[in-house]
């Protein structure tokens, strides 16, 4: 299981996941608002 506190590598991977999730959520919300 991913633990961002265990190492910098895992923290970096966690950051990439958060970035991907944020892009999807913001994209979806902006798309719904535009419709």
């Amino acid at each position, binding site marked *: 299981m991913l633990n961002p506190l*265990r190492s*910098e590598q895992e*923290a*970096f991977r966690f*950051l990439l996941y*958060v*970035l991907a999730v*944020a892009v999807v959520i*913001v994209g979806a919300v*902006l798309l719904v608002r535009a419709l």
Partner: protein
Amino acid sequence: MESASVAHAEHHHGPPAANVSSRVEAQVLGMLLFIISEVMLFGAFFTAYFFIRVVADSGWFPLDDKELPKLVAGVNTAVLISSSFTMHWALEGARRGNRRAMQVGLLTTAMLGLTFLSVQINEYVHIGFAPSDNAQGTIFYGLTGLHGAHVFVGLTLLTFATTRAFRGHFTPKEHRGVEVPGIYWHFVDVMWIVVYSTVYLL
């Protein structure tokens, strides 16, 4: 028989010493408690933010003809995220014994962090409203300022790490002085992604 008993002693899984937890290392536990307290701190500010926007329905920017600079903040977000990549590069350099990569990576990370902070201060100067103007202004400055303070702390840690890297303090086996600021720096970036998404974009 004797070698078997030595091997058994080396792989002993009995109860730990009285002052040591058998489950969590002290450093990890310390970092865990710190991050939890940080999440609660940001959570308090986000609660105020969502109260204004959702519960009180007071509206958000644009407000009184004042708009948040989404584009500039977006470029600044890219600057901060790229600093996480250079931080990761520095750590990879430290792990592989590539001293030059570690030094350049740390220095670049610090420069990018400094750029982010400078742009944010410039944003405050030109944004056209003050924290005392309204509740929205208060929470905008509160959230972005709280994050900015964390960037400042991260920059301080990076300054120590960079100085030590140039003095040849780290080895492929012992580089905790880069690892811990790295974890903290990625945490600061994660928080900014959440702040930028909610405050500026949504």
